């Protein structure tokens, strides 16, 4: 059975409608959302309403959490104070616009969803704010999947879709204790094959193109297809400017990459 995984909708209604239409055309009925329904984009209520109408199971993203809990991360992944200020502006605007009912819905979202050996999270099993980048340390990547007791980990947050298979792993260790310091015990751990699938972003792609991205996973074959879906980018850009959000959000959507807001250290996880 094929199922679709979407992430990082970011209040972009035109992109979400286009992606759902693409999924419907493939007669796929199981959809999972990895959070960040709101933030940056101009239609937070419309996007949350559509996810609720379609009864799409969703995890809570970092933006969803911040809207409910208040900004409790230090936002230290912002590359500049100007970018941080724009992020705060978007946060405040979204919090003001979002209905109480939709805030309650976001607050009700779980951190993770699980289907058998498939685990669905926003950032990583550790944190909604942690970025699992495609080239990150392979052992650390495997640890995230293995510690979560999953075979395949679906995540978002980076806005860049990819599939990473980790295999042929082995770690050898030499263990010494005071009981017998001269006789070191050696052991070897064979690491299991695991996969990380990043669904990219529906509402704010950063993979070098303006198209929305999502993935289709075939549970029978294990195949993962990364989909790119064109949508009416101008419609969203106009709405961003009309509602008074920072115009740079529209500018970067038109370019398909977060030129103005790219984090210097995307691996940083705020502990605040």
């Amino acid at each position, binding site marked *: 059975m094929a199922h679709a995984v979407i992430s990082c909708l970011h209040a972009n209604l035109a992109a979400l409608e286009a992606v759902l239409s693409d999924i419907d055309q493939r007669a796929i009925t199981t959809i999972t959302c990895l959070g960040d329904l709101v933030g940056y984009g101009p239609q937070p209520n419309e996007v949350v309403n559509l996810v609720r109408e379609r009864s799409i199971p969703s995890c809570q993203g970092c933006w969803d959490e911040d809207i409910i809990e208040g900004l409790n991360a230090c936002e230290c992944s912002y590359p500049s104070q100007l970018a941080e200020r724009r992020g705060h502006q978007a946060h405040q605007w979204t919090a003001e616009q979002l209905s109480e009912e939709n805030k309650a819905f976001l607050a009700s979202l779980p951190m993770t969803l699980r289907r058998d050996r498939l685990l669905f999270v926003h950032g990583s099993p550790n944190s909604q704010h942690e970025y699992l980048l495609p080239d990150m340390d392979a052992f650390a990547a495997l640890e995230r999947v293995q510690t979560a007791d999953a075979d395949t980990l679906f995540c978002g947050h980076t806005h860049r879709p990819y599939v*990473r298979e980790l295999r042929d792993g082995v770690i050898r260790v030499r263990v010494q204790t005071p009981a017998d310091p001269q006789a070191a015990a050696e052991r070897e751990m064979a690491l299991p094959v695991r996969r990380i699938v990043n669904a990219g972003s529906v509402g704010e792609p950063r993979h070098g193109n303006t198209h929305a991205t999502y993935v289709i996973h075939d549970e029978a074959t294990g195949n993962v297809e990364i989909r790119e879906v064109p949508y009416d980018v101008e419609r969203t850009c106009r709405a961003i400017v009309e509602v008074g959000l920072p115009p740079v959000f529209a500018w970067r959507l038109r370019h398909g990459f977060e030129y103005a807001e790219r984090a210097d250290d995307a691996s940083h996880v705020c502990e605040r």
Partner: protein
Amino acid sequence: MARWALVSGLQGDLALYEAIQRDLRQLGRVDTLFVLGDLIGPDRDANALLDRLQDPRRGELAPQCIYGWWEDQLLAERGYRGERRADPLRQQFGQAAVEALQEAVDPGHLAWLAALQFGFIELDCALLHGSSADVGDCLGPESSPLLLLDRLTRMDVNRLFTARSGEQFCVELAGGGIASTVRDLAGERQLQQVVPQRKVIGIGGGLRYSLYDPGSDRIAFRSVGQQPGSRGRGFA
């Protein structure tokens, strides 16, 4: 290069601390004393030890302290950790232990305890109570090598000293590797990575402490009560 002494789990025991200081004086060639948390505990009044740690006597090595699991629990219960309370302590040892811990420490020490850091980075070493993941993370000689490597990678260090388990051990990552394939919209690429030569060292707790020579990378496990002339149980 002189050696470091690494101590933890004093839990308010001033006599034990004085015995370790005596041991260090007799050994010589130790220039830095790190106390990796658990300065306090629920079993005895910790105020005299806390006074001494903040105001060392002449001739003693001045301790460099970080907070441990017991300090974290106390500070949480006393409102120094936001909304968090000492629930792990409560679940593990009961309400009586929470109350005993609070009674063991005069409120006048709380500000000093709250100012202690999570850990130190010295040279290429992380000196922590638990691990880079959490102050309560309990690493031991049987811990998964994948987990140990992850804890090292998170701080990007070659040596991670931990105290939470109270055990003395040295796990050396001695080889191995992993392959991966990344596929995205630009295509597919193969990546290969080898296991870095790194170590996780359990320093012990209470009577058991460790000496580390950063110059030679030698660790020696000691226990107070050992004969001064003995060499400790060292590894190259």
